[in-house]
Every structure is written in structure tokens, then in C-alpha cells.
């Protein structure tokens, strides 16, 4: 919303020397966010009144060479192709350095030469300065005629047309809760309070014309008050220039006198005014909801809109406007007789109507914020006060009004202790009272309690309780005047969150093990969803998704991971990633089940065995690093389509299945277009893993006697698994203290269908240090058992 400071000054005498930046800062700190405070005269720098002295046509180009008086010692020359610019015309001359609009962009004017003649400026059109509709034009051509001002050549245009003004641009979002601020009077009231200067109330005038039955039935839920004025003898002329100028400064294109006045009243005191052509609207006027199938062609539209259920203004039951939003096209003002509507509509119905017909207007923006009903009267009286000057000759010939209810002023009490404890600062009662009074509240102090009555314009939902008064006092006292207050808190226990600390330890462990965390959208691309074996109709669906392909919310983290792998395979061929997020599992009743999962992938160009073992190693170490019971791994069937039927393991913790570790199936690899990489994927259900309540560590006394280690490589048929080997060795001899896997080898010197396993034995006794012979005997025993039990042969 734009506001003119010059206009605001009608209502408040701002302190001398106040800069526009200071006004913007003070309003921003205490009331609403001022996005910009613009000195609009800057846009008209180097633009002056010029009097055309002489016009001569150039032979070659047929352009005109004009001699123009701009108040300097000698006239300047301007080349123009404009037709019919006559000597004697006072018009606008832009000199080098001026800004001119061209295709919506401001460009700086420079000296130029045309056909060998120097052009020292341009005769500029109103549109080129963003002043379209404001200034009168001369005859058929579009040059501006400034004769009415009788200005001296060279006079500044900005000064001439009231453009020496500051325009405040206020962020509408910061105004949603303050319907009273959607006008110059409202902001002036705030500034008066901020600077401690009196507010000058607007000049009002009541009408004493005869009452006539203009209004029929008003739907009580849609309309709190409706007043109509009949106006005759409405001239087609313009409103006074100061009014047009003010409207133009705040971005409104001036129009006919009556329309300007209606607009002016709205921006002045915040009451929307609707104009109907009296010839097009039959009496009585009513407000009701649209019937099923009812349509209305809206102003500026070519097609009729469905208005069933929408709040409508009707003339003799014929829809003429969407109440509080926009009039119908047939009711636009054409003749010299008009009906003026000053109404108060229900904010919710205006908002719904506006959304239904897809139209937002200055009026609907105000109504939907909930304007007080009493404002209707101020609107009418302000209109009447300005009518004579704005629309000379017009007469109000009839008036009718119905008030169904007024805005009840909110009353509340506030305890001084309550107020001061929330402010955290001791303020005197007098200051509190003053803060509230200057913005229109009635305040009385009885027994340390303030009895407060809010003004009607703050009583439409904005101020409802004593808590709202804390803000009013604090902001007017100035937020910058409150110092930090250290908290006074009660501590009863340490702040712990087992859930989040478990997750955090896991994430940090994965990162330290070389997996990069990625964060993915919760909606997944259909291609990767299906590649992972899920169907869209098994998923929770977004009603209005980012794209039709991304409607499903993830039922697993795997589809997102596959997409991420595809993205990164463009840049590299090996990497490890993980992600942690909720998955969504639709249920028959109620919202989808949301479960925390953690999934990751190891991607490489080859060595699937290595990828699988690396992934398993990370998961095994994870349980230890995160204080979980050790994970175990059991070969399993391919329960999901993304799991290879031949290389899949169920991950178990404390006897529960908590996830899966598998080679990505060829089917998924193909559908996700990842065939040039080998991929191992794991996913864990974080809700199924329960960390120990505290650290769990098992202590064993270090051995008294030196232990020995011996490596052994043996070749086994490839059906022999490591667990078989370990089972044969460990526990078979009290001297064998440990049996670790070292390496697996398939290749030269190992027969087909066989593999070589290297293991490391740790040997020791609790009674003595073993000598060479004892060690050799134990190792020989191991070899014999592996030969006899598993068909192993020693690899030389």
C-alpha cells in the first residue's frame, strides 16, 4: 500500500526536520513495515515547463525543429516528430539527465543529434513520466497542455503538480491484522502517537437530504450496514487537480470526478465506496447470496462468472455486484445520475466471494480485514464534505440506510502488575494511560486496574484481550527502550532426548565412515518409485504436487536414493551416501503412519563383493558406535523388488528385524538407469532400534601371559562359508583365543569352485607363555579339523 506523506500531513503536523528515512524507521519499529520511503520528485528531475516559441519543419525528415523557452537566457532547440505542437503552448520539456519510461523501464535522457541538428531535450508525453491520466493534453496530439497553471517557463514540473512528496510503500503483509491502517487517516493516527503530536480529525459534513426507500432486504450474515445515496447532475468533468495529483502519487490512475472522489474517500478514511449507474440499477437494492446457477458479468470481464453462494448486491433482485468486491459490468457509471453504496460487509464472506470469482480489489482487501461498521458514517460524511469541490453541481437527492448492528467496542481490564511483569520494565501508570489514549482508547484507573475501552476501529478482532494491550504499550513506549531481561527459570531435570541423540550419533557415525549425508524431498519421482517396486496408488498423494510426476510421498527412502545416485553418477563413478527421513505408509483409517528410516548406498564401478562388505562393515561398526546391541545379518529372500534375489540380508538387532542390506536388483538398476554402476543399498527402521540406557561395555582382564598370532590360508570348496570355518576353529581348543577373518581370495592357484580364506588365530594360555611347540601343535590341530570337517587344504 502506498501513502503520500503530504496527504498524511492533513491529519498530523509532523515535527520539523523529520526525514523520510526517520518516518520509515519509526513506523517500521512501532507499527508496520515500511518497505520504501521514496522522494518522488527525484523521478521528475530535469523536467520543466517549456513554452514553444517557434516550430519549423525540416526538409529532409519532415521532423519539427522547435525553439523552446525554458526560462534560460536563450531558448533551446528540440527536434520532434510530434504533429501539431503550436507556438505558444506550455508543455513538458525533459532535459538531458531526466528519466523517461520506455517499455516500463526508466531510461536516462541524453543529448542527441537528428539530421545534423542538435536536440537539447524532448517534448515529453505524460505517459513517459508515469503521469498518464493526470495532466490535460493539447488537442488531438498528446502533448501536455500546462497553460492552466500559468507557470513561468523553466518552472519545475514536480513543484507545479505537487510531486514534491514522499511516498511510503508499506508491506501489506504487515497490515493484515490492522484494518484501521488501510488509509491515510489510520497511519496519521499512528504517527501522531509516535511523535506525541495531536491528530487533526478529518473535515466531515452530514447530509440532510430527504430519506427515500432505496434499500430492500439485507442478509444479516453478509452485511452489517448499508447506506445508499442518490446523486444527480453528475458532471463528466475532472476532480480538482490536488485530488487527482494525490491519487496519482499513490499509484491510482485518475478518472472521472465522481470515481476519483469515491477512491479518494477510501484511501483517505478507509471506507470503500461503490458507484452504480442509477439508470442501470432498479430499486430496491438488496444484499443476498447468489442462487444456484446464477451468473454475473464482472466489470472488465468478457465472460459471466458463476456467483452461486456468493454475497451479491442486487437491484430489484437482479445481481449488480459481488458485495464488497466488484461491480457488474452493466452497472458501471455512465449517466449523470448515480447510486453510491457505503456498506459494511462480513469479512469472511467477502474473502470467500473474492476467491470464488477470482478477483481482488482495493475494496475487498479492506473488507476482508474486518472494517468497523461505524466507519460507514465517517465515509459518507467525508464524501459529503468533499462533494461540492470534487464534483461541482452534483446534488444528493435521496438517502436511505439500514444498520443491522454496529461494531461493539471491546472492553477489558488490565492489572498493572500483569502488564508490568510482561513488559519486564516499570512504567508509570500515567505513561501507560497516555500510550493507550493517543491511539483512541478510553482508559480509567480504579484500584491498580486499568479499565480500557478500545475504539471501534480496533474492535473488529484486532484488540480482544488484555494481552493485546501489552503490545500496544510496549510498541508505543518503543521496543528499542527495553533492555534484555535474563530469564528466571525452574530447572528440574537435565534436558535429554534419547530419540534425537540416537539419531544424531548414527548420522555422525555414517559421516565419519565416509558416507555423505544427502537430504531429499519427501515426494518422489514416479520413475524411481516404480523402479524400487512401489506403485503410486500405494502411497500418500499430494493434492497439488510440485509436478504430476512427483505426487507420491515416499513409502521408502530407496526411490529417493536411486534418484540421487542417478544425479551423482553424472559426475563420478564411486561414492557412498546416506539419508535419514520419515517415510509415509498409508493406513485404512486416519493419517499415514510416519516412520523414521535411515538408508544409504555404496556405489562403485566394480567389486560388488567389496561394496557389500564395506556396507556390512559400516553397519556392524554403527551398532558399537551408537550404543546399540550388535547387529546380526541373516541371508533372506528378496522381499522388495529393489533387492537382488541372490544377495540380500536381513539386519537384526536384539532379535528384531530392523532393516535390510542388499545388492540392488538388476531390475531396479535397469529401470532407474543405473546399469553402469554397481549399487549396494541398506535401509534401517530407526524406530525398531533401541539404544542401551547407558554405555554398555564388557570388561575382561588383559591376559597375564603373552599371546601369539598365526595366519593361515586354506582353500575350501566355495559352498563353505566363513561361519563354518569359524565354527570349526573357535572353541575347539582352549588355547585358541580368537579366530579372525583376514582375506578372501579367488584366482590363480585356487581351483575353480573353490576359494582361499586367510584367517588369523590368536593363541594363549592362562598359565604360561606358549612355546613354539605348543603353538605348532594347536595350529596343526586347527588344520586337521578344517581338512577333515570342511574339506580344506592348506594353501602354500
Amino acid at each position, binding site marked *: 500500500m502506498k501513502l503520500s506523506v503530504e496527504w498524511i500531513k492533513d491529519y498530523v503536523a509532523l515535527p520539523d526536520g523529520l526525514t523520510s528515512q526517520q518516518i520509515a524507521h519509526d513506523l517500521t519499529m512501532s507499527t508496520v513495515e515500511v518497505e520504501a520511503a521514496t522522494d518522488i520528485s527525484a523521478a521528475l528531475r530535469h523536467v520543466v515547463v517549456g513554452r514553444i516559441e517557434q516550430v519549423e519543419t525540416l526538409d529532409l525528415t519532415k521532423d519539427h525543429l522547435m525553439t523552446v523557452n525554458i526560462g534560460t537566457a536563450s531558448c533551446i532547440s528540440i527536434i520532434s516528430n510530434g504533429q501539431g505542437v503550436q507556438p505558444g503552448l506550455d508543455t513538458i520539456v525533459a532535459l538531458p539527465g531526466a528519466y523517461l519510461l520506455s517499455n516500463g523501464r526508466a531510461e536516462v535522457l541524453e543529448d542527441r543529434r537528428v539530421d545534423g541538428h542538435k536536440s537539447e531535450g524532448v517534448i515529453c508525453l505524460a505517459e513517459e513520466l508515469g503521469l498518464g491520466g493526470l495532466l490535460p493534453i493539447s488537442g488531438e496530439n498528446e502533448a501536455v497542455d500546462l497553460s492552466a497553471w500559468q507557470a513561468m517557463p523553466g518552472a519545475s514540473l514536480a513543484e507545479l503538480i505537487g510531486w514534491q512528496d514522499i511516498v511510503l510503500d508499506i508491506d501489506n503483509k*504487515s497490515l493484515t491484522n490492522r484494518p484501521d491502517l488501510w488509509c491515510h487517516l489510520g497511519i496519521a493516527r499512528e504517527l501522531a502517537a509516535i511523535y506525541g503530536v495531536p491528530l487533526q480529525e478529518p473535515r466531515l459534513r452530514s447530509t440532510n437530504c430527504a430519506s427515500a426507500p432505496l434499500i430492500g432486504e439485507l442478509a444479516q450474515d453478509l452485511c452489517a450496514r448499508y447506506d445508499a445515496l442518490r446523486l444527480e447532475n453528475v458532471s463528466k468533468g475532472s476532480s480538482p487537480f490536488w485530488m487527482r495529483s494525490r491519487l496519482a502519487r499513490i499509484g491510482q490512475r485518475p478518472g472521472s470526478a465522481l470515481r476519483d472522489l469515491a477512491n479518494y474517500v477510501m484511501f483517505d478514511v478507509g471506507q470503500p465506496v461503490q458507484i452504480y449507474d442509477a439508470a442501470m440499477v432498479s430499486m430496491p437494492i438488496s444484499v443476498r447470496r447468489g442462487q444456484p446457477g446464477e451468473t454475473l458479468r464482472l466489470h472488465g470481464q468478457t465472460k459471466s462468472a458463476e456467483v452461486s453462494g456468493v454475497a451479491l448486491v442486487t437491484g430489484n433482485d437482479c445481481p449488480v455486484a459481488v458485495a464488497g468486491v466488484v461491480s457488474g459490468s452493466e452497472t458501471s457509471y455512465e449517466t449523470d445520475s448515480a447510486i453510491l453504496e457505503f456498506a459494511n460487509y462480513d469479512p*469472511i464472506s467477502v474473502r470467500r466471494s473474492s476467491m470464488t470469482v477470482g478477483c481482488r480489489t482495493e475494496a475487498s482487501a479492506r473488507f476482508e480485514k474486518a472494517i468497523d461498521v461505524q466507519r460507514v458514517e465517517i465515509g459518507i460524511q467525508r464524501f459529503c464534505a468533499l462533494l461540492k469541490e470534487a464534483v461541482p453541481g452534483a446534488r444528493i437527492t435521496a438517502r436511505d440506510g439500514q444498520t443491522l448492528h454496529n461494531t461493539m467496542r471491546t472492553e477489558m481490564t488490565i492489572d498493572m502488575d500483569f502488564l508490568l511483569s510482561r513488559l*519486564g520494565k516499570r512504567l508509570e501508570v500515567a505513561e501507560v494511560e497516555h500510550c493507550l489514549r493517543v491511539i483512541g482508547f478510553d482508559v480509567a484507573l480504579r484500584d491498580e486496574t486499568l479499565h480500557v475501552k478500545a475504539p471501534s476501529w480496533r474492535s473488529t478482532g484486532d484488540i480482544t484481550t488484555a494481552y493485546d494491550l501489552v503490545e500496544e504499550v510496549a510498541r508505543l513506549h518503543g521496543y528499542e527502550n527495553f533492555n534484555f531481561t535474563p530469564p528466571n*527459570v525452574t530447572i528440574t531435570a537435565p534436558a535429554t532426548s534419547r530419540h534425537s541423540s540416537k539419531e544424531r550419533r548414527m548420522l555422525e557415525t555414517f*559421516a565419519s565412515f565416509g558416507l555423505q549425508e544427502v*537430504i*531429499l524431498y519427501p515426494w518422489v519421482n514416479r520413475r524411481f518409485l516404480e523402479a524400487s517396486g512401489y506403485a503410486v496408488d500405494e502411497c*500418500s*498423494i499430494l493434492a497439488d504436487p510440485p509436478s504430476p510426476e512427483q505426487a507420491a510421498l515416499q513409502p521408502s527412502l530407496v526411490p529417493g536414493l536411486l534418484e540421487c545416485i542417478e544425479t551423482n553418477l553424472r559426475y563420478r563413478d564411486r561414492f557412498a551416501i546416506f539419508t535419514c527421513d520419515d517415510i509415509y505408509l498409508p493406513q485404512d483409517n486416519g493419517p499415514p503412519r510416519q516412520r523414521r528410516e535411515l538408508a544409504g548406498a555404496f556405489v562403485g564401478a566394480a567389486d560388488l563383493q567389496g561394496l557389500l562388505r564395506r556396507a556390512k562393515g559400516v553397519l556392524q561398526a554403527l551398532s558399537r558406535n551408537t550404543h546399540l546391541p550388535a547387529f546380526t545379518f541373516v541371508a533372506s529372500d528378496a522381499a522388495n523388488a529393489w533387492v537382488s534375489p541372490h544377495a540380500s540380508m536381513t539386519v537384526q538387532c536384539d532379535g528384531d528385524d530392523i532393516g535390510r542390506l542388499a545388492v540392488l536388483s538388476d531390475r531396479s538398476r535397469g529401470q532407474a538407469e543405473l546399469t553402469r554402476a554397481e549399487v549396494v543399498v541398506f535401509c534401517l527402521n530407526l524406530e525398531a532400534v533401541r539404544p542401551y540406557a547407558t554405555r554398555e561395555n564388557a570388561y575382561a582382564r588383559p591376559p597375564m601371559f603373552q599371546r601369539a598370532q598365526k595366519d593361515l590360508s586354506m582353500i575350501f570348496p566355495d559352498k563353505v562359508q566363513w561361519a563354518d570355518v569359524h565354527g570349526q576353529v573357535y572353541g575347539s581348543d582352549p588355547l585358541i583365543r580368537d579366530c579372525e577373518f583376514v582375506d578372501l581370495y579367488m584366482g590363480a592357484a585356487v581351483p575353480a569352485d573353490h576359494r582361499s580364506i586367510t584367517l588369523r588365530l590368536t593363541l594363549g594360555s592362562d598359565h604360561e607363555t606358549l612355546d613354539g611347540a605348543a603353538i605348532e601343535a594347536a595350529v596343526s590341530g586347527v588344520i586337521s579339523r578344517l581338512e577333515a570337517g570342511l574339506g580344506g587344504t592348506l594353501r602354500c
Partner: protein
Amino acid sequence: MHRVRTNRLLSLYHAHCDIAYQAWIFGSGTNGHAKLHRGQGAFPGRTTNKQDEDLTLIPEINMLRSRILDEIAAANTAEDVNGIRINLLGRKGELAGLFGRLRDATIEDRRTLGAAVNNLKTQVTEALEDRIRQLRERERDLSMLLDPTLPGVAPVTAGLHPIRQMIHDLNDAFVSMNFEVYEGPQISNEEVEFDHMNFPPDHPARESMDTYWLEGAEGARGADRLCLRPHLTGASARYMQTNEPPFRFVYPGRVYRNESTDARHERAFFQYEALILDRDIPFSTGQLLIQTILQTVFGRPVKTRMRAGFFPFVEPGFEIDMQCQICGGRGCRVCKNVGWIEIMPGGVPHPNVLLAAGIDPANWMGFYINVGLDRLAMMRYGIEDVRRFHGADLRFLEQFR
């Protein structure tokens, strides 16, 4: 110390070649012996007084001294030095042999020779100790190994997502002040996100969130109208419903808005919420929450200001600005020449929000803030496009450790 010892050893080495010195040894009595022993290598200025030709063992002792000292000087390991010690001083060592031969000498010679052998023993023992000490302090010359510009062998580690890092840092800061870390569900509903948050029905602010509604909720209202959470504040009420005040908690999480994306707008982004509720928390206490966040992220105190702002769930509500970190508040393009950047909303929980959570607003006061982490991370690291956070591009993510 090192220098002194070296000098001393060198002087010993010279000493055994020095004729004058030898002469002194031959004729020296116990006085001279004592002097040499304690003399830190400074030779007593004695001259020869007597030379006894009958003392045939003397040259042998001298040769032995010369050989042993050479061997000690040439020994390169502690083991070598020990071997020399055993050969010389052991039970069957050369010195024991010499002592054995003294029995054949006259009493007078025995005294002289005994002194000479003892002297040798002392000298050699000292040289052995010095050599051991010297070897212990010796450093191998590894200069040819060193290229300080060679990169180290990197351990295989990766990183957490930059936003996750920020969340962890902020959690650490708040947990240190006894704030609990809370998490709520990502799929929520209209009742929690709007009704409990004091958004009037059909209020424009409901629309400003551009919520992602779930299919199947058309026409539904309240708890049945499901959505991806458009902000975290709704779930703060869930926490308040299930916990008794006083409490302090933070709530990190991702929220969703249905809007078109560009370098500054994203459909999924992170917020960080902090709420403190106790008996006596005036709004100016909120500075603690604000400063904790900014100081954790920027590593230094950041100047802030609180100004009037409207959010349905707080009263009073604030827009919190921080001094522009690019220009230090002087005004620049980033802060649109005002010196301040809007960084987070905050305020006192609205009484209706507390009532919706079953908390009596007359008895409890608090402060709440909610900051967008993506934007903070962008400012902190100079990231130009918010979409990078969800882009899953490892070339981006790996830069944050």
C-alpha cells in the same frame, strides 16, 4: 647440556693422544686422579716429574684405552656399546685380566699401575655413558623424506548436510541451557497447524502459507484435513499439550510450502524453533534465544532489533532484524540500504495458543522464535541458490565438513 657433554667427550678423545697428559697420568697420585675425575675436561696444569721405565704394563693400558675409546666412538647402537662394556668391564673382561696381572708387580708399582687401571676404568665408563646418552639423543636424518607441500593421506570420512550441521550446533547451544530437543510429525493437519495456532477461519494468513494438502482431504476440515506441515509452530502446541510447564525446548525440522521455486524460494526448507515458558519471562528475555542462534551461526555476537510484527500465534509479535553482516549496518545492496536484514519472527505465545494446549496464560509467560535455517546457511556461507540444499549434488555437499 648437550653442548657440554660433547665438549667433554671430545676433550677426552684428545686427551688420550696427548703426551703431556699421558705423562701426567703415569706420574700422578690420587690427587691428580681425583682432579681429572671431577674436572669437566679441564686438564690440570701438571708437568711430568717422573717416568718409571719398569712399568711395562703402562703402554699396554694406553693402547687399550686408545682402542676402547675408538670402539666406543664408532659404536652405533646401544647394543654395540653394551658389548664393549661387557668385553671390557665384565667378569671375564679385559680389565679384570689387567687387574689380575697387577698381582705380579711390586707393591710400589702396583699402586701406580692400580691407579692407572682404575683411571682407565673410570674414563671408559664415562665414555660409555656419554656414548649411550649421545646415541639416545641422536636423530636420523629424514630430510630427504620431507616435502611439506605433499598432501596428507586423507582418512575416509564424509560430512553431514550443512543444514544438519547447523541444527546440531544449535542443539548443542540450547541443550547447554537445558532446552530439550523436540521433533514432531511431518504430515500434520489443519487443526494443529492453523486452528490451534489462533488463525481465524478463512483468515488470509491461512492462505499465505500455501500449504501442501494431501489428496483425499477435499472438503474435510480440522484434524481430518491432512497436510505437510507448513511451519513448525503447530507442532509446538503438540509438545505443550503433552508436557507440563515450565519447559524450554527447541524444535528443528523441515517444512513445506506449495510455491514456485527460484534461487530464493524452495518448496521444502528448514526451520528452527525455540520456545521458553516459565512463570516470569518478559518479552525482552527473547534476546537470549535470538542471540544464541545468531552467535552460534556467525561465531560472534550479532546486533539485532525487535520491531512490531503480526503473526496470529504470538502477542505481542515481532519481526527480528539483524545487522547486515555484509556491510556492518552501513547499508548495501543486500540489505537494501537499510543496514538491517529481517531474520526471524518471534514473540510471546498467544494466550489462545496456550489455552489450546491446556496451559493457563495468566500463570505462564514465554517467548518463541522461529528462524529459517536455509537462509541463515546461505548468508553464512555465501550460497547463492536455496535449491542446492535439496539438490543432492555431492560436489556441493562435500564442501561442508
